[in-house]
């Protein structure tokens, strides 16, 4: 079996009769059997179901009524609900939880005949940038197994990187799709906020959370987005805007105006190879006839404090649902209702999740609400207004996806702020609700992948994907 990098080439071979869906699933299952014990990308593998589904799709291909994603073997981040399957969110508090319904995005890929092969490791409730914060163990980078996968959708990225599936659905609250995609040499797309229904996405920070694909090609990201995006009766916040055919790329050559974030690209904290790769990409854009200019964003140092005040506040509220009553872990040490809540939560949540719940509870407490929470909402507006203004002058804003390539295991776990700083370039898109994509941009001296991030205007995914396609 050759290593496919796009659904289109798989479908061509399926229709020509060179391969079957069953063979594809067997190929991925074989890779999972060989690599997953070490890499820890999948938490659950649905081998028998995937094989049965493969036979069903093979039959459909024969009769000519297969769906758009026929031949796509996909994994889903364990933060997405999949009916009658476990969804743990990488947390002990949801150990054994089986969803009663499908997330809308999951339902839509099933309806389009994708084959779901398993659920993937992630940082607990999406809170982490390395996938080391999972109650089920760290997920390792397949290029260098002493390196982290990136997070929080680390399992989703490594599963694609190591050919354990063709594509994954991850979630991105502050970079959790783009960052692991960057660390693993893949394409990761975070759509515009509200482009994809959040129904069935276990909430971390509701005004930031987005479901997005991790793939080997820009084409597959586009196809997946056009399947999962769009209005949904289950999510009243989702955009009702028409979903364009993202995979019909706009290939007319246009001279684009591209701004690069000066503070990011010229930052002293940038790993030298990341800086060089980014400059080389910018030079290539100029050579292709585009206008490339430095833009200043003096508010850049406030992205992360703003993000962490607002997301911890939202998390403390969202995670109050884990009370040991309706689902999830209940302590057997409880003596009364209050101790049941406190002990169940203390036993079920990991350290970073507790820290964020505590921070969020603090910034929302009566005496500090205005000083932290309201202040951060005001700065969020300033960041959004300035970003929107830049995107009225420029077609795209670009920068490296991360300041460095994948960290060594354990390198960032002792100091939370060091861990948070890794999200510096990705959080902006979530703070302002705009779409952004990470595409591969070479490797460093150790062979670790470097990511290049492109951010576009609200609901301009088609232009964003077309531009990304022209580069990768």
């Amino acid at each position: 079996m050759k290593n496919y990098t796009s659904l289109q080439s798989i479908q061509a071979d399926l229709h020509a009769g060179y391969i079957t869906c069953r063979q594809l699933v067997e190929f991925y299952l074989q890779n999972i059997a060989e690599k997953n014990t070490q890499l820890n990308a999948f938490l659950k593998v649905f081998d028998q179901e995937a094989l049965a589904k493969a036979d069903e799709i093979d039959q459909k291909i024969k009769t000519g009524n297969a769906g758009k994603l026929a031949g796509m073997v996909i994994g889903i981040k364990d933060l997405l609900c999949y009916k009658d399957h476990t969804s743990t969110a990488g947390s002990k508090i949801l150990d054994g939880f089986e969803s009663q319904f499908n997330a809308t995005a999951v339902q839509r890929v099933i309806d389009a005949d994708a084959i779901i092969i398993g659920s993937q490791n992630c940082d607990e409730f999406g809170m982490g940038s390395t996938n080391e914060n999972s109650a089920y163990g760290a997920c390792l980078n397949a290029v260098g197994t002493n390196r982290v996968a990136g997070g929080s959708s680390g399992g989703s990225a490594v599963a694609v990187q190591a050919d354990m599936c063709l594509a994954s659905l991850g979630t991105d609250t502050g970079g959790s799709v783009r960052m692991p995609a960057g660390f693993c040499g893949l394409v990761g797309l975070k759509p515009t906020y509200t482009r994809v229904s959040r129904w069935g996405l276990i909430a971390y920070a509701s005004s930031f959370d987005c479901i997005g694909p991790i793939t080997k090609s820009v084409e597959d990201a586009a196809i997946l987005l056009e399947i999962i995006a769009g209005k949904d009766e289950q999510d009243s916040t989702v955009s009702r805007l028409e979903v364009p055919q993202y995979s019909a790329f706009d290939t007319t050559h246009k001279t684009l105006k591209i701004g690069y974030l000066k503070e990011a690209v010229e930052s002293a904290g940038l790993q030298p190879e990341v800086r060089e790769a980014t400059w080389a990409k910018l030079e290539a854009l100029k050579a292709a006839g585009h206008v490339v200019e430095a833009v200043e964003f003096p508010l850049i140092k406030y992205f992360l404090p703003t993000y962490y005040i607002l997301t911890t506040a939202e998390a403390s509220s969202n995670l109050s649902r884990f009370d040991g009553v309706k689902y999830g872990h209940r302590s057997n040490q409880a003596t009364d209702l209050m101790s049941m809540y406190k002990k169940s939560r203390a036993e079920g949540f990991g350290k970073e999740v507790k820290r964020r719940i505590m921070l969020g509870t603090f910034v929302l407490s009566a005496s500090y609400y205005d000083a932290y929470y309201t202040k951060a909402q005001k700065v969020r507006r300033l960041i959004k207004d300035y970003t929107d203004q830049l995107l009225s002058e420029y077609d795209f804003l670009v920068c490296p996806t991360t300041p460095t390539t994948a960290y060594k295991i354990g390198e960032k776990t002792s100091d939370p702020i060091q861990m948070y700083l890794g999200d510096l370039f990705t959080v902006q898109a979530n703070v302002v609700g705009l779409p952004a994509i990470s595409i591969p941009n070479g490797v460093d001296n150790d062979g670790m992948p470097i990511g290049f991030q492109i951010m576009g205007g609200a609901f301009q995914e088609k232009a964003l994907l077309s531009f990304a396609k022209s580069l990768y």
Partner: protein
Amino acid sequence: MKIDKEALQKIAHLARLEMPASTEDEMMGSLNSVLTWMEELNEVDTADIKPLTHMSLEVNALREDKVIPNISREQGLKNAPKQDGEYFRVPKVIE
């Protein structure tokens, strides 16, 4: 220092988290360092700026208010750590 042990226990109570004495110092230290870092926002002039409270570009997705079947009782109780077939069970609250 924003948070001392008393404040830490008060927040932990509000958050319904048991915070044993052995974990107090580490949690307190990390909360204080993160909060100090967050306070960098005070350098930003936000006079006359309205807080951004909604990220959706569209407003009021209205639908008909009709009763539709949701999940069954059996399904609803399926993941409960303790239930009796009709209700979620919790430790006795009223004597």
